[in-house]
């Protein structure tokens, strides 16, 4: 292990559980445990998986003006977000490109923000520079983050506190789990029902052991986290979205509420708003040059990030931004970009893999049905 890699509070537990550790986002993280990516993926879809996502950035925005301030950085409705309600958001740049994607939950006295590990230093600097005078930007460096995901996550977590079962998807609250104080939300990155649990770093191992002691729960590494999120059709920052893609091109327009669009009460006012407004109009006309789509193959060969997408005549149309064999779907699945005119479900294109072409069909995402609990 490289000496400059950071460790999460659960690092020693991962090693004890036999994890294979790899560098990720500056941290030494478990990519898989002895049962392997395939078994871990399937276990999460069938029962419950525990993920250490403490490498992600947790930040509080504190102050009466925090919501309006955050709206100057994201094309998302934060002001109208109810207490203990959570929402997906995107930091944009002046060209409408995505700087990072994030989760925001309003708590009684602050906004609880979770950002990607690889972007957290720049995200915190971005918020401090742009809105630091309107609210306090407080990184929670000593907080761990655990994700418990899968259809049986609610059964396992309810044994530590039955009240968590009453939460619905994208809501949160403060809960003691068998005596350990936490803030948790009913959300995640697998397409399954589940929770993300923010806990003090010094209590993280104790909580993880309580969760792993539940018969439904097994530890799951980043390998399965990636295949699970891909089957769920969820973007991975730095792959499916980055500063060269806008939220509109990335098919994330659902994250831009009406109130922030043209004609809305708080229209614009975030970086790149003019670009994004224009693209929203173009997208309706299907004239946009690129749009993120789901792709499936009827052949067995996985189609991975970087594979070019071409038409029958071999003319380049776009590129695959993530892909693998979906363990639950049983077929190669991918996310990638095509011209909007070719983004209709059922459209046939070809991916170039090792100089050979393999047919792929535009498909709706998620590739596997979501298991979110909406009450």
């Amino acid at each position, binding site marked *: 292990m490289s000496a400059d890699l950071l460790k999460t509070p659960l690092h020693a537990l991962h090693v004890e559980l036999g994890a294979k550790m790899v560098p990720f986002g500056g941290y030494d993280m478990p990519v898989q445990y002895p049962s392997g*990516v*395939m078994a871990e993926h399937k276990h999460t879809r069938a029962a419950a998986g525990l993920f250490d996502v403490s490498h992600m950035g947790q930040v509080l925005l504190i102050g009466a003006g925090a919501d309006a301030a955050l709206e100057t950085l994201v094309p998302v409705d934060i002001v109208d977000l109810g207490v203990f309600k959570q929402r997906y958001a995107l930091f944009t740049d002046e060209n409408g490109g995505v700087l990072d994607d994030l989760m925001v939950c309003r708590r009684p006295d602050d906004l609880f923000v979770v950002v990607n590990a690889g972007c957290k230093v720049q995200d915190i600097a971005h918020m401090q520079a742009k809105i630091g005078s309107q609210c306090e930007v407080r990184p929670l460096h000593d907080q761990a983050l655990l994700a418990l995901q899968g259809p049986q996550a609610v059964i396992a977590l309810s044994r530590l506190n039955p009240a968590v079962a009453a939460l619905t998807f994208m809501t949160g609250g403060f809960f003691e789990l068998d005596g350990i104080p936490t803030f948790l939300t009913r959300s995640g990155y697998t397409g399954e029902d589940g929770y993300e649990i923010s806990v003090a770093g010094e209590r993280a191992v104790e909580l993880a052991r309580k969760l792993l002691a539940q018969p439904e729960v097994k530890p799951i590494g980043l*390998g399965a986290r*990636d*295949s699970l999120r891909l089957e769920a059709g969820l973007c991975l920052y730095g792959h499916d979205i980055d500063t060269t893609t806008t939220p509109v091109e990335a098919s994330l327009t659902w994250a831009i509420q009406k109130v922030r669009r043209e004609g809305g009460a708080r229209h614009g006012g975030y970086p790149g708003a003019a670009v994004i407004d224009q693209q929203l109009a173009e997208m309706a006309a299907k004239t946009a040059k690129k749009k993120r789509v789901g792709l499936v193959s009827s052949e067995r060969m*996985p189609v991975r990030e970087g594979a070019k997408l071409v038409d029958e005549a071999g003319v380049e149309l776009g590129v695959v931004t993530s892909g693998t*064999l979906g363990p639950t779907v049983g077929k190669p699945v991918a996310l990638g970009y095509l011209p909007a005119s070719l983004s209709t479900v059922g459209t046939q294109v070809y991916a170039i893999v*090792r100089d050979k072409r393999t047919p792929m069909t535009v498909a709706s995402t998620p590739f596997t049905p979501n298991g979110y609990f909406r009450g």
Partner: protein
Amino acid sequence: MSTIKYTADHEWVQIEVDGTATVGITVHAQDALGDVVFVDLPEVGKSFAEKEVAGVVESVKAAADVYMPVDGEITAVNEALRDDPALANSDPLKAGWFFKVKLSKPAQLDALMDSTAYDELVKNS
């Protein structure tokens, strides 16, 4: 009587007295890759030089090239592995073989590692 040798690319080569060899990936290789979900095998009758890419092995996580360990012509490929790539994990040294080769330069075998040398390589990797 057959001998097994190993390459630095984590492949095994089982050499038969008739001048043919069977090639597969080692226990260490399949362990590093994880669950194998796809293999691309060479065409029977095709010739490759040593270190040329003759096939591909893919897991959920990654894709890796399978190299030709010595110069030769492909005489058979493991169709059972194509249908059930997980054989490369469950039985990498027997049922999970990749292809058979007719050697064109048998002297190249001398440069491959024996099991002691290969075990040492894995231990230090």
